[in-house]
C-alpha cells in the first residue's frame, strides 16, 4: 500500500470517483448497478501509549512519548466493475492522521497538509481479464497484492509484495505493487501462476523503527572475533578522546529500474486427497534493509547530559549507514488440510486443521564495509578487517529455512484454537539456527575499559539469527455472535546467551537465559473484544502488550512498546 504524495493522491481519488460515475454509478454512496460493486468502510482508530519508550544515551536518544499514539480516520473506497470477461478493481484508503506533523515554523501553520495531515494508499488498481486467449487463462495487470502461503498471517513463502509494518495490529499486512500476474487453471483444482514485478518496493517499517538507531551496542556482524575487536576499539577511542558513537542517518539505497532487478515468481497449486498444496519459486530481494556501508566521522562538540551535568562528552563519532536490500531466491512448499490426530478415540472427533509452510531461502552474500573519515586526531580510511582484508559478511550465501507449522481446532463448539510454530520472524534474514549455528549480538559492553584483549573484556548478549516463536490464539463468539473475544500470544522461544570471559576457567563462557525465565522471556499479548452492533458497524477495544527486557525481541523499544486501542468501523 504505497503512500502517494497528497496532491497526486487527491487527483487519483477524483479520477476514481469520475470512473465510478462514468461506469454508471449514480453516486459513490448511492446504489450499485449491475456491473459496478461499491464497498468500503469508514474507520476511526484511537490508540494510547501508556508509557513512553526510548533508547540511547543523552547524546543520541530517540523516544516516543506516552499519550495518544494514533488518532487516525480512514475512508476506504473499493470499486469493482465486471463486464463479460473483463474486470477492473480500485481499492483506495484515504487516511487522515489526526496528529500534527512537520509543524516547526510559522509558515507551516499556513499549510493545510501540515496542520491536518493525510495520506492516500492504493491497495489495488488493476484490470483483470478472464479466459484471456485460452479458457482458464487469467491475466491481471496493475497495482495489486498477491497473497500466497497457507500460514495464518505469517507467510515466509509470500515474498512478492513487501511487508507493511506501519500498523502493529495488522500482522502480515503488505504493500501493493504494480505487477503482471497470469494464472492458468487447466483443469480441476490445478492453478499455475506467474508474477512479474518490474519495480521493487521496500517494507514499510514501524513508526518506532528509528529508535533502533539509538542503540549502537549491537554491531550485527556474525563474525564474533571481529565484532568484539570493533567493540573494544570503539571503547578505547571513547575513553581516549571522549568521542561517543552515534548513528546520524540510515539511508536506504533502492534497486534501480534495471531489468536485472525485475522480480518474478512462479507457483503450482493443487489439491490432492483433500489436501491443498502449492510449490512456489521467487526471485527478487528481501524487503528488510541491511547495512552495507558505514562511514564514521569524528565530530568535536562538547555536550553534557541535561539531567546530570557531570556526564559530558567531547563529541561524537557520527556514523552514516547505507542500507540495501539483498537479493534472494525462495523455494516455497505449502500444504494445508486436515489430520485426524484424535482418530483413535471411540467417538472419532473431527480432524484438526493443519498447515505447513516452508521457505528455503538462498540469499546473495551481503558484505559490510566500514570506513572512517579522519578528524579529531583519528586516522581515516577503511577499517582493517584482518584476515584476507575483505569486508565481512553480514549475511553469507548459505541457504536457510523459515517455516510456519500450525494446527487449528474448535472445542466445546465455541472456542476456536490456533497454534503455530514460527521459525524465523518477519525481520530475520540469513542462516543462523540449529542447522547453521550463527549468533547475532543484541547488546555489547566492555567489562574493563582498560582492557585491550577483546575476548577478555567484551561482554555480549547474543541469540540465534533465526528465532523460534510459539503463536497461540483463541477466538470465541458470544451473544448470538455479536461479541467476538479474541486473544493471541506470540512467545519468543529463542534462548538468549550471555557471553563473557571467566577468569576462573580462563576462557569465554556462555550463560543461557531461558525464554521462560524473567531475564529471557519475551512475548506479545493481543487481547481484543469486538461488538458487532449490526448493519455493518462494529466497535472494538483491545491492547497490544509487548513484554520483555529492552534487549529481548518484543521488549526492544524499536518494536513500539505497548498500546491500548479502540476502533469504530462502519462497512458499507
Amino acid at each position, binding site marked *: 500500500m504505497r503512500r502517494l504524495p497528497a496532491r497526486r493522491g487527491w487527483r487519483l481519488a477524483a479520477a476514481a470517483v469520475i470512473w465510478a460515475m462514468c461506469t454508471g454509478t449514480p453516486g459513490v454512496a448511492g446504489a450499485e448497478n449491475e456491473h459496478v460493486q461499491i*464497498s*468500503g*468502510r469508514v474507520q476511526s482508530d484511537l490508540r494510547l501509549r501508556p508509557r513512553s519508550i526510548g533508547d540511547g544515551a543523552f547524546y543520541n536518544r530517540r523516544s516516543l512519548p506516552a499519550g495518544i499514539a494514533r488518532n487516525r480516520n480512514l475512508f476506504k473506497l473499493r470499486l469493482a466493475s465486471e463486464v463479460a470477461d473483463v*474486470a477492473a478493481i480500485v481499492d483506495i484508503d484515504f487516511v487522515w492522521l489526526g496528529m500534527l506533523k512537520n509543524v516547526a515554523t510559522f509558515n507551516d501553520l499556513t499549510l493545510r497538509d501540515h496542520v491536518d495531515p493525510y495520506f492516500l494508499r492504493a491497495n489495488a488498481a488493476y484490470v*483483470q481479464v*478472464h479466459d484471456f486467449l485460452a479458457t*482458464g487463462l*487469467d491475466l491481471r495487470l496493475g497495482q495489486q*497484492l*498477491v*497473497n500466497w502461503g497457507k500460514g495464518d498471517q505469517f507467510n515466509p513463502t509470500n515474498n512478492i509484495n513487501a511487508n507493511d509494518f506501519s500498523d502493529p495490529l495488522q500482522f502480515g499486512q503488505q504493500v501493493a505493487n504494480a505487477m503482471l500476474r497470469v*494464472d492458468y*487453471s487447466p483443469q480441476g*483444482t490445478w*492453478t499455475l501462476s506467474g508474477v512479474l514485478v518490474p519495480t521493487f518496493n521496500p517494507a514499510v517499517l514501524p513508526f518506532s523503527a528509528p529508535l533502533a538507531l539509538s542503540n549502537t551496542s549491537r554491531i550485527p556482524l556474525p563474525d564474533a572475533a571481529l565484532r568484539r575487536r570493533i567493540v573494544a576499539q570503539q571503547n578505547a577511542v571513547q575513553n581516549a578522546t571522549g568521542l561517543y558513537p552515534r548513528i546520524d542517518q540510515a539511508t536506504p539505497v533502492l534497486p534501480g529500474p534495471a531489468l536485472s532487478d525485475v522480480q518474478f515468481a512462479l507457483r503450482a497449486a493443487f*489439491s490432492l486427497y*483433500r489436501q*491443498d498444496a502449492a510449490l512456489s519459486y521467487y526471485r527478487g530481494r528481501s524487503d528488510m534493509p541491511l547495512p552495507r556501508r558505514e562511514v564514521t566521522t569524528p565530530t568535536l562538540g562538547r555536550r553534557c547530559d541535561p539531567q546530570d551535568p557531570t556526564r559530558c562528552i567531547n563529541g561524537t563519532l557520527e556514523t552514516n549507514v547505507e542500507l540495501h536490500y539483498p537479493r534472494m531466491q525462495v523455494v516455497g512448499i505449502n500444504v*494445508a*488440510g*486436515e489430520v*485426524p490426530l484424535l482418530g483413535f478415540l471411540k467417538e*472419532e*472427533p*473431527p*480432524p*484438526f*486443521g493443519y498447515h505447513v509452510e516452508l521457505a528455503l531461502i538462498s540469499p546473495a552474500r551481503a558484505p559490510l564495509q566500514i570506513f572512517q573519515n579522519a578528524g579529531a586526531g583519528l586516522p581515516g580510511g577503511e577499517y582493517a578487517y584482518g584476515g584476507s582484508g575483505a569486508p565481512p559478511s553480514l549475511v553469507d550465501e548459505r541457504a536457510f529455512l523459515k517455516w510456519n507449522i500450525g494446527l*487449528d*481446532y*474448535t472445542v466445546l*463448539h465455541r472456542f*476456536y484454537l490456533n497454534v503455530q510454530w514460527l521459525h524465523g520472524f518477519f525481520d530475520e534474514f540469513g542462516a543462523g539456527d540449529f542447522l547453521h549455528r550463527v549468533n547475532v549480538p543484541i547488546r555489547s559492553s566492555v567489562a574493563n575499559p582498560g582492557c585491550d584483549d577483546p575476548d577478555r573484556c567484551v561482554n555480549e548478549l547474543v541469540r540465534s539469527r533465526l528465532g523460534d516463536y510459539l503463536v497461540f490464539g483463541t477466538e470465541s*463468539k458470544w*451473544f*448470538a*455472535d*455479536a461479541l467476538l473475544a479474541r486473544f493471541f500470544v506470540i512467545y519468543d522461544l529463542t534462548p538468549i546467551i550471555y557471553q563473557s570471559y571467566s577468569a576462573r576457567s580462563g576462557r569465554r563462557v556462555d550463560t543461557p537465559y531461558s525464554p521462560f525465565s524473567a531475564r529471557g522471556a519475551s512475548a506479545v499479548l493481543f487481547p481484543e473484544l469486538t461488538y*458487532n452492533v*449490526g*448493519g*455493518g*458497524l*462494529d466497535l472494538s477495544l483491545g491492547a497490544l502488550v509487548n513484554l520483555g527486557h529492552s534487549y529481548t525481541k518484543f521488549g526492544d523499544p524499536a518494536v513500539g512498546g505497548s498500546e491500548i486501542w479502540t476502533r469504530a*468501523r*462502519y*462497512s*458499507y
Partner: protein
Amino acid sequence: MPPCLPPLVALLLAAAASDAAPLSGDAILARVDHQLQASKSQVVLMDMAIEDPGHSPRRIGLRMHMAGDRRKIQFLYPGDMKGIEVLNLSSAQTYVYMPAFGKVRRIASHLRDQTLFGSDYNFDDFSTIRLHDNFDARVTGEDATSWQLTATPKKEAAGSAVTRLDLEVCKENATVHRLKFYNRQGQHIRTETREAYACSEGGCAPQRTQLIDHRHNDHWTEVTIKDLQLGATIPARTFSLRALQRHE
C-alpha cells in the same frame, strides 16, 4: 404449520394411494431429493433475518447459485459481510473467501457445525445437498397429507452435531415442511419449518424458511426468497475454486 394440501384433495389422494404398496422411508427420502434436484440449477436471492429474542433482527442479503451438488453463496449486505463468498464443491469440500483477509480458505471439519456468520445455519446445512446419500430413513407415522420420517446418518460424519433428523414430508410433491434436528445426547436442538412452496416444472422451493435453535434461547433465523430463477443458466466456472481465488 398449515397442511401441505387442502383437506379434500388430500382425502382423494389418500384414497387413491390406499391400494398402492407403502413407500419405505428411504424411498420417500429419495423422492425428496429428486424434488429438490428437479431443477438442474437455481439462482436464489434471499433475505436472511436473524433474531435473538428481545433484540431487533439483523438482516443479511445473500445470493445463492446452485447446480447439482455445487453451491455458491455470495453475501450482499450488511457492509461487514459484503463480498464474503462460500463455495461448496462436495460435502467435504467447502471454501470461503473473506475480503478482510484476502485469502481463500478451506472450511475445516471442526468448523462445520459452527454458525454461518451469526445465523442459526451452519456449514453442514450448507453442504448437505442430498439427504438420501447421507441418511437412512424410516417412516414413523403418516396421515392423509404427509409422512413423518426419522433419518439417521449412514455413517456419522465427523464433526456433525446431528445424529437424528425428524422430517415431515408432503405426500403430494415430496416437499419437506418441518425438520427437527437432534444431537448426540438425543436432545432436540433445532427446528426448521419451510413454508409457502412455489412450484413449477423446475420443482418446488419454499418462499420462507425459519430455523429455530433451541440451544440458544430459541434464537431464530428466517430466510425469505426475494427472487428465484429455476433452471437458470449458470456458467460452470461459477463453481470453480479458481473463480473464488480470483478475488485474492
